[in-house]
């Protein structure tokens, strides 16, 4: 074969190999996962809802599924839909809070990490937060928790989209500044 053809062939071969390698790696943020992820790895009750501890504080175990759901755009998007369908807006509005506390600020009574938010949804909390364990499947609770994290800018970048259909009830999620959660011991 002629030498320019050989050169083109080699270059095409490299390009194809590169594409296949990229395909194998994929992009975690963009993956659409519908199948269930299986049972949780952290035992229930291991999540702390307060910061008061005797001696040196132990960290809350970090659930890898929490990171996974937070970093995936599809899950955050599903969480946004479920937040509306399961009537979270009824108490929390679109993050600004109404009869329930605001979810888009830095104040969290029972912790603002995704594991703590997941625990709050599952277990319920005093003064009106229902317990959704056995009602909303576990994966869907993670999706809602991931969405809630984006309201305060705490999800990885580029996961949350900026647009929102319907009335503009909250700032675009891609433009929200990051507000690191602070657990307050308020008993209002």
């Amino acid at each position, binding site marked *: 074969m002629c030498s320019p053809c050989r050169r083109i062939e080699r270059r095409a071969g490299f390009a194809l190999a590169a594409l296949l390698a990229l395909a194998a790696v994929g992009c975690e943020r*963009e993956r659409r996962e519908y199948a269930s992820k299986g049972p949780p790895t952290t035992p229930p009750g291991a999540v702390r809802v307060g910061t008061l501890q005797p001696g040196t504080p132990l960290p809350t175990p970090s659930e890898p599924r929490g990171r996974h759901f937070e970093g995936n755009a599809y899950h955050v998007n599903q969480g946004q839909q479920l937040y509306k369908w399961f009537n979270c807006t009824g108490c929390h509005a679109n993050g600004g809070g109404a009869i329930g506390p605001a979810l888009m600020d830095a104040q969290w009574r029972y912790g603002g990490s995704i594991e703590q938010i997941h625990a709050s949804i599952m277990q319920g909390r005093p003064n009106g937060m229902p317990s959704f364990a056995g009602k909303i499947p576990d994966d869907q609770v993670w999706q809602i928790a991931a969405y809630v994290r984006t309201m305060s800018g705490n999800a990885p970048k580029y996961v949350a989209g900026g647009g*929102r259909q319907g009335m503009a009830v909250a700032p675009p999620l891609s433009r929200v500044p990051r507000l690191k959660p602070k657990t307050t011991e308020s008993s209002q």
Partner: protein
Amino acid sequence: MSARNADVEAQLARTWSDPPGLLGWLATTDHKRVGRRYLVTAMAFFALAGMLALAMRTQLAVPGNTLVGPDRYSQLFSLHGSAMMFLFAVPVMTAMGVYLLPLMIGARAISFPRLNAFGYWMYLLGGIMIFVAFALDAGPETGWTSYVPLASSDFSAGKRTDIWSQMVNFTEVAALCVAAEVVASFMVTRAPGMRLDRIPLFVWAQLVTAFMVMFAMPSVMVASQFLQSDRQFGTHFFNPGEGGDPLLWQHLFWFFGHPEVYIIFIPALGMISSIVQTFSRRPIFGHTAMVLAMVSIGFLSFGLWVHHMFAAGLPPLGNSFYTAASMLIAIPSGVQIFCWIATLWLGRPRFATPLLFVLGFFALFVIGGLSGVMLASVPLDTQVHDTYFVVAHLHYVLIGGAVFPLIGGFYYWFPKFTGRLLSERAGKVNFWLLFVGVNLTFFPMHWLGLAGMPRRVYTYPAGLGWEWANLAATAGSYIVAGAVLLFVGNVAWSLWRGKAAGDNPWDAPDLEWATSSPPPPWNFTQVPVVEDLTPLWTAKPLQWLRGLKSDKREMLLTSIAEARPQVRWGCPDPSIWPFFSALALTLQFIWTIFDPWGWVWASIPMAIAMTIWFWPKKSEPSSD
């Protein structure tokens, strides 16, 4: 040739050569090298998009197939459509224009040669971006038309649609660059004596296309910017909850989208005219009617777009108007078909592969055109819109109307590009294989649409009677793939061992055949003087004008209507800065997919690269 001629040519070779090695490859402003690159890149994207189609057809071969899931399938059809329309169809027609236009009008170079190079790099980088995104599971997923609200943040999570939207910008920049060059070349760089009534139909086709590009592309750029703005900053262009309208996207997109298909189709009309003329051995019958037909198609195509929206609940009287307008555009097409058939009748046809492909055009495109006339009717369209009937129609008009003339054009101009002829025997097999394959793939789809099968479905149920048509279509798609492979094989083999072509193997009349095959970097050693529509068929031999310098890059500019010589214009030297500017703009485009600060920070390298590009140099264009 005489010894003085050989001296002149040696000097021209020194003046017009590119720097050696990688630098020369990146910095060339030779329209033929850039044109060849466009062609190879476009055919590579064609092959990739074709593989996506094979994957889709394999999935649809049997009902309830589980080869490809819904998410991957939506990426397949979205990227297939986007790549074919944005990365293959328009650029390949652009490529033929970029390569052939200056040769056909007797010019030494294209106008704005560095802009030409810049446009190519933008096209290449945008195409690479979208395919890399596909490999990373971030390919487009909402169809090449990307309707909102499906394409809004609420229903298309992540960056997939943003990347698609930015790819559109890359390709539109490239198309607009070429459009500007084509118009400028047409207006002022034609050979002396090439009056408006002596301009080949291929050149007219490229001009009409260029004007259409300039009016249509901004619409889709605006639409894609609105979409990105909605998705990233929470604007409400398409959000009905805050006063926007999802139909705005459709209007903006289709105002571009309908002329887009004619932007793909009209250059093919030019190629058909060239081939029919040469292989009938007489000028095209009704030259003026042909020019007027192409111009009127160009104008009319901007008044049809609502026929893509007949099911969207728009007012009925408006819809009826668009029915009439969509039917109207069949008239100039019919005129063209008549004129070509008349040319063949009046001439002495010679059957070679290019003509075979043009005959394939007649058989296939007219089916597509007639099914298009049926789609123009509102009530009938409400039944078959968004079904496989439309898939059949669009492939018949695009493959029949653009791809067949294009491949015919490749067989016709390959000797000019490379100096070698493609194998005629392989060419005939190529034609028949492709013809049979295309018909087997797409004809059953007419029936499928009438039988109730909608578009963009990743699977279908058994028991509805759709099985045999889908299986036939899948079989046909593999035959098409075989034909494409055969074409590639023919090209590869002929590059290596094809018969030497000489200057004018087809005995064709146009100016590109008056120079060597392949042409030297400066195209013509002296300036041809044109006194006829078919310069190489006149009884008198072609006259040449001396006077352009050989020690500096120069071309002759002529007046717009009469093509009288006006000034000698200096052409720019090769430059790496178009490439760096394209890299800088690519950086900006990709950065802004993720962060609006890219508009600010990435402007700095852009500004630097463009400043150096445009900095006046001693050897810069100056009139003399």
